[in-house]
């Protein structure tokens, strides 16, 4: 009797989702940290949306799960779980939680049929964590400086007297700051969320999605530069810009970015349904 078939005996008693739930329960310190981050207001609860999409996907794909998990993925899940636990003692909670999310994903991947969108699910699992505030902290400034510089170039090309200084801009003598809420981190989260969600439900092959990741990033950066440039040009007017107009322009830019991201990812949807690994 092989090891795989030994392990395969167990699922008869406990269904796949039960095992995954047990694994999730075992990773409770990470879940508790994430819940606290959401509850104390230190991060936007965007991760709940990614989690909800993941749960809906699982509910729909549940009948197609393999009756026997793949051993390699289980080993990876165990290793990642150990790493997540060890990281708790040596690093901030976020890296540990990222490893824990990947451990759960690897466990899920063990049950997934062939050609399942594993990469998209990995993306959703990571996006389910409270990431935005940390991303803002670590990569916010480079993104702001990048956005301000490209906006300054664009405005100069359009004939504006625009200069960048750090993450601030002076346009026609008016100081306008590209501060943390302007960095595009939220737009990036939305862009990758849209890519992963569409890829998961449209069963986009992993290699295709991974190849599209840099393109999605480029669309997000370009979208944020255009959004920022429009707002800066309007804000530099003597009368400024009304708050509702800020929101409207931001939402329009987000809609354009989302549509482009979906168009980049979705054409590669698979025509065929899942094939169960056990049946293969």
């Amino acid at each position, binding site marked *: 009797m092989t090891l795989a078939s030994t392990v395969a005996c167990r699922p008869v008693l406990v269904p796949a989702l039960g095992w995954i739930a047990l694994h999730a329960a075992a990773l409770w310190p990470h879940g508790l940290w994430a819940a606290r981050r959401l509850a104390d207001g230190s991060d936007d609860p965007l991760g709940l949306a990614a989690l909800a999409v993941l749960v809906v996907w699982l509910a729909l794909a549940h009948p197609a799960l393999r009756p026997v998990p793949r051993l390699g993925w289980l080993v990876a899940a165990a290793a990642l779980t150990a790493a997540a636990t060890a990281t708790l003692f040596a690093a901030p909670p976020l890296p540990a939680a990222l490893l824990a999310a990947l451990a759960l994903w690897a466990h899920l991947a063990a049950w997934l049929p062939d050609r399942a969108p594993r990469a998209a699910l990995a993306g959703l699992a990571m996006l389910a964590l409270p990431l935005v505030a940390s991303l803002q*902290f670590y990569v916010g400034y*480079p993104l702001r400086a990048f956005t301000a510089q490209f906006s300054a170039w664009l405005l100069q090309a359009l004939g504006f007297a625009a200069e960048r200084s750090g993450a601030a801009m002076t346009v026609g003598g008016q100081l306008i700051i590209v501060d943390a*809420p*302007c960095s595009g981190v939220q737009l990036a989260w939305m862009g990758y969320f849209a890519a992963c969600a569409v890829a998961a*439900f*449209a069963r986009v092959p992993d*290699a295709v999605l*991974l190849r599209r990741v840099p393109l999605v990033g480029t669309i997000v950066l370009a979208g944020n530069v255009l959004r920022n440039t429009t707002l800066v040009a309007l804000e530099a007017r003597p009368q400024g810009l009304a708050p509702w107009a800020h929101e409207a322009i*931001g939402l329009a830019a987000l809609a354009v970015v989302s549509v482009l991201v979906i168009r980049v990812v979705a054409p590669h949807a698979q025509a065929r349904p899942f094939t169960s690994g056990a049946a293969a």
Partner: protein
Amino acid sequence: MPGLDRNQSIRPHAPLGRVIVAIAGSLFAALLIVAWAPAWAQAEQQPREGPYFHIASSEPGIDRLPLKGTQVEVRIVGPIADVRVTQHYRNEGQRPIEATYVFPGSTGAAVHAMTVRLGERVLDAQIREKQRARLDYDAAKKEGKTAALLDQHRPNVFQMNVANILPGDDVAVELRYTELLLPAEGRYRFVYPTVVGPRYHVPGSEGGLSSFPATAHLPEGTPSTTAFDLHLRFASPLPVHDVVSSSHRIEVQAEDSPGAEVALAPADDGQIPANRDFILEYRLAGGATAGGLTLYPGRAGEDGYFLALIEPPRTIETVQINPREYIFVVDISGSMHGFPLDTAKTLLRHLIGGLRASDRFNVMLFAGSNRMLADASVPATHANAERAVAILDKIQAGGSTEIVPALERIAALPKTADLARTVVVITDGYVTVEERVFQLVRGNLGRANVFAFGIGSSVNRHLIEGIARAGQGEPFIVTRPEFAAREAERLRRMIEAPVLTSVRAHFEGLDVYDLEPARLDALPDVLGARPVALFGKWRGEPRGQLVLQGQTAQGDWQQVLPVTTPDPDAQALRLLWARRRIQQLGDEEALIGGNARRDAITALGLRHSLLTQYTSFIAVDQIVRKPQAALDLASVNHPLPLPQGVSNHAVGAAVPSTPEPAAWLALLVTLGLVGAGIAHVRRHR
């Protein structure tokens, strides 16, 4: 080369290989970004200078509001106030902390003692040269000893540092100061400032004249996190009458007696306000002032000290006044936004409205830049006054406080022939360039009288009083619009009818030296009904008299004060003389520039145990309470409330930005588009 076939060509990666290379490259780029992110540097940095908004940290275990209360005990004997301030620090967190608290003091305060109570132990602080005290403090902090350091940044701004307050500790730091109270028009005024207003600050070189400590401020409308209480007792030679406070609710006991007592009563919200100066005014019976010539015999082996307070003549007759030119310099920076600017506008209406038609006037408005209402001074006709007031009514405050370029422009204004110029500066004084301003007023505005109006509930009195002193004028403080008319009328009376001019004094029979002011034969004019104060040392036999002479509207005036028996209890004269001497040396230093009077000031501070710009108080507990505590020590800058009426504009003006849309709206849009995208894919599959 082992393992490599020389003939084997390098083949392109398979698709999966390219993906792996792309991921590895992305991870490396991400690592580079994270490693060089400014966030790393930011995490280690705390503001070192200037005002900023306090941010409530969610970091557990650190008590970020360690100053729990300030208790003030005041005893007023004659014209001298003896003040005892006790600051209670308690650490209710789980980590040891170093608390830093920037707090205000009265401009004339001679801070002469500090004591630290740590549980049952009492530590007497020592006066040290400032750098030496800082080194001792840092060493004690590293060794895990509880220590307290008191520094002076301005004559009215101090900083307390208390290191190694362990969890559960209750540290009481008590400091004592003495102050001379001079009455104006027979009314005495005791002021205890409770808050340092946010100063407009351009960071200078470390330790230079322009340096100013970092001050954390609570946002507008947030009350002080520190309990405040004050109790005041009189030990007056005469009964005390008309005890009132324009700033706080008070309860007065035994009023109309020499031993009256004053306690603070809570406001409507049950708290005693700690976001404005406490101002108490009173009179002595019959409108008398505690004056005369007081001698202190001095300590063993040293000469004596004296204080002469000479009441000027009361009779004020309006004399024929030549037409004058008035230049009003009005601060419209961010800190004046709202209530202070409204008060300033009311004051200006009264000031301009009170001018005579033969006078001329102009108004300068300054913030980050400055502008004059007219190219040249205009006659103070009703129409011009109305026009100026109409323009002022439309002004909105905002921006920085570039007072130095504004005064430089005033100094460069051509003078109108045959018109004496009076410059009236109206500001809250929230700047850190006091010395530069004094230098400018002394050096360039010398041909004009300069008067300064402090506007607000807790103005920078050091600047207001210093401008007036340098410009041979008088300081005014207007805390509310309803006081504007009264203060404008005071200014008009002072200019039209100076109380005493050509003032000079001399001693007959008493050997005096080290006088303050230094030259008794050319004393400043007495503009308001305020006593002339002379300080100095004496030696030899206490005999003779002091003669003060001057010119009033009625002609020559003279008053003679006989030398009395030295009072061994008048020790405060020693401190007040030294304080006045240090102020004079500081003024000279500001004129010369650099640290020219550093040695003299340091010597005076050390000899008289006085806090100065070059000497600090330090107390160190000799018990090492927590070895290696410095490794876990959290630095906490205790926040100050914004002064009453001062808006958030004083700390930072709103600069437009380009934020992303609200997260929930963005999520709704994205979810909708994702749903539509999935549906579209499924339809076309």
